[in-house]
């Protein structure tokens, strides 16, 4: 892997330009869009002097590029600004806590999606041509097709009101090794069901397609010809190769977690980033919107990079950077 360092460096050199473009675009959308946080804050009682005074204090009356420059300068010095949704609270005091909440329960959902989707996909591929294949995929597609907005009240009706097994909503944190963990409480079961059920179909279908492709490969025929047991053929030769494209999906799925889910968080009362960013957008909370955008963009860049590097390790055919083909 001697080619890896220049590759990483080259990719990292691009990162600032990507972030610049993303931040500039987001910043411009907020500043040039209608309304502003001070107006939103003041509401129907309008005192132009007060609005002007606060806009001035917050630098909202500076020229666009000056505002942008000041903002980015502060960001580079670790200051993400101040919220208008929680008036005067530093953005960093809010969003990392909320992202942590969202990451926790999404991670569990993601694990479940892959843990069920991958074996289900392989199984469906092996049963191609029988009724079991379309039935398996069909059931998962059914879950995928029903919107969470419909699924959630049904889950709540069954598990909370009718059976009385679970609280209908909420988020209870426990302090474990200094970390606030909320996924050890039973009230997280329904949100995780609501999130993972629709997600399984995508993974299962991709896994099925990949498996079918690999099953046609010469090396599978060879393995079988050598007299290997089917279990070994599937687990060692087919599944391993079919899993390669999953790496990409995992990377981006992880980053996608940062966004959270508005509906799941709102209906289940989970104080995560999805619910918060929604409120922030309504309040035109510039600094919060910028911070979440920047963090998500950075995460995407990193995830992309990591995925590519990991690919190099697990698939020797992929070479990072120079050196030319060696096979």
């Amino acid at each position: 892997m001697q080619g890896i360092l220049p590759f990483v460096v080259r990719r990292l050199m691009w990162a600032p330009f990507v972030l610049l473009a993303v931040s500039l675009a987001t910043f411009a959308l907020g500043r040039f869009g209608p309304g502003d946080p001070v107006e939103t804050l003041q509401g129907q009682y309008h005192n132009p002097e007060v609005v002007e005074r606060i806009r001035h204090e917050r630098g909202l009356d500076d020229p666009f590029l000056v505002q942008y420059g000041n903002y980015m300068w502060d960001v580079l010095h670790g200051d993400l600004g101040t919220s208008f949704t929680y008036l005067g609270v530093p953005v960093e005091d809010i969003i990392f806590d909320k992202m942590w909440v969202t990451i926790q329960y999404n991670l569990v959902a993601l694990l479940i999606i892959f843990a069920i989707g991958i074996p289900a996909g392989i199984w469906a591929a092996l049963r191609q041509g029988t009724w079991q294949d379309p039935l398996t995929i069909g059931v998962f597609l059914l879950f995928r097709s029903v919107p969470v907005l419909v699924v959630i009240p049904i889950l709540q009706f069954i598990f909370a009101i009718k059976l009385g097994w679970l609280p209908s909503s909420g988020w209870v944190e426990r302090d474990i090794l200094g970390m606030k963990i909320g996924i050890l409480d039973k009230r997280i079961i329904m949100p995780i069901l609501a999130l993972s059920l629709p997600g399984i179909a995508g993974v299962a279908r991709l896994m099925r397609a990949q498996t079918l492709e690999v099953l046609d490969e010469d090396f599978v025929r060879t393995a079988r010809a050598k007299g290997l047991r089917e279990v070994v053929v599937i687990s060692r030769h087919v599944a391993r190769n079919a899993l390669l494209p999953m790496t990409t999906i995992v990377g981006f799925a992880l980053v996608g977690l940062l966004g959270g889910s508005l509906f799941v968080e709102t209906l289940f009362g989970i104080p995560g980033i999805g619910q918060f960013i929604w409120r922030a957008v309504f309040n035109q909370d510039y600094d919060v919107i910028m911070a979440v955008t920047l963090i998500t963009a950075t995460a995407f860049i990193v995830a992309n990079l990591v995925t590519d590097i990991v690919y190099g390790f697990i698939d020797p055919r992929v070479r990072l950077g120079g050196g030319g083909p060696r096979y």
Partner: protein
Amino acid sequence: MRNLSAVLRRLAAAVAVVVGVVVLGGCGGGEGDSSSDGGTPAAPVVGGELRLLGRDPITLDPACASDVDSANYIVEVFGGLVTIDRDLQIVPDIAERWDMSGDGTVYTFQLRRGVLFHNGDRQVTASDVKYSMERALDPDTQSTVAELYLGDIVGAEEFADGDADEVTGIEVVDNYTLRITIDAPKPYFLAKLTYPTGFVVDRRQVEGSTCLSKTNWQRNPNATGPFKLKEWDLGQRIVLEPNSRYHLGAPSLGRVEYTLGGGSAITMYENDEIDVTGVGLNDIERVRDPAEPLNKEFHEASRMDIWYIGFNVEDEPFDDPKVRQAFAHAIDKDKLIEVVLLDAVVEADGILPPDIPGFNENLQGLEFDTEKAQQLLAESDYAEGLPDIEIATSGRGASVGPVSEAILAMWEENLGVKVATRQTEFATFLDDLRDGEYQMFELGWVADYPDAENFLKIQFYSGSSNNYSQYANPEVDELLEEADTETDEARRMSLYQQAEQIIVNEVPWVPLFHDKFSVLIKSYVKDYTLPPFVIPRLRYVHIEE
């Protein structure tokens, strides 16, 4: 902030505010004497927990709060010179009594002795009150509402503009005497003081903080209200504990917990996770059914607000009063309220909501009358044809909501007029309104304090910045000015009623309806009142085994 309620109201036509519950606690008996508000004396504290669903406050700094959500918590934790009791009367809080000068401009407040801050180490004195009011008005504090609530005080404007070192109209006479001078006799001045803006804060704690910076103290404010803030975990929960030394009588509740994360309110209520919930239109018919067990826990109460359609009276075609009257007569409010709003609101004939002092039962509204509507239109300057008409609403959805849709259909059916719609995000909507850019608009107004001035003067006085209709009638202006300074209560109310009837007849607004609270309260929660606007109310609540 009425704008927030407006947006939310629009999103879910009638989602009532959610409330909470009580459980066991237990704290020492209060030392506070019972006060003149006729409320509960400092009875033995029985404890109990009240569990409510709440929304995050934007701020817990009284000087900065301008919205209903924030005020809801602030009035329970903080206190000022005066407060409002559950009969909606202005009663003493930190002030024990007050005298008003003969001309109605000088208020001398005698402060109650022994009012302690929550941490118990200090008594509130007159200079704490002065400090708190001046801090709110200080331009560095950046309050958006201080001038609105405290601007009547002599010297407040100069101070807020940075041209004076102190507010000359607030004088500390001695430790327990405070004299406030206002710029003209204003009967509603005390009502304004019940709003959080001038509430007492602990100087040592808040010094150097503004609305937009150094707000950490708000997680643990040292104040004087009936409850102490035990915890505010942003977006998760707010926990209140009783202030056992509260001077108007210690609360009975041992603990109040607000869940802020959201959730499906009625499901949580049915699952016994919360003790009070608002009921939306989706569930209202179910809980009204006497056969439904929830029906016994269902309560309704009026709110002090008004939802209306406003006309820009300077813009075509609504510069002709006959066109406005025609549009008003063409709306069948009975049908609108019965079919679309499922009777979860109260029809509005006039501007003032039913519970406000001065509400006129004999007011003549504009009845639904298709013939009259058509006739008025035919007599108007626009008999030959109307220009294109557009109604503006605030919001972000693709649809304007069922209320607007029904009204548009009525105009088309009863007047033969097709009205287009236009939807704008709220801040821009207000901006455009102030600039008079809309011919017609749909909006609501919620009382800040229970006074007719808060509706009529603010909305229809020709010089008011909230007069979005651009309505100007010298006769109405004169009545409102006179009422402003009239100290005879009966005469003052009669002036407002005269003004209101003229306004209703000239139709700068078509009043539509007043909201109601539709709420479920668990049977073990007692004395949970549903006041029409924000007042401190949790200290009356108790939990029965």
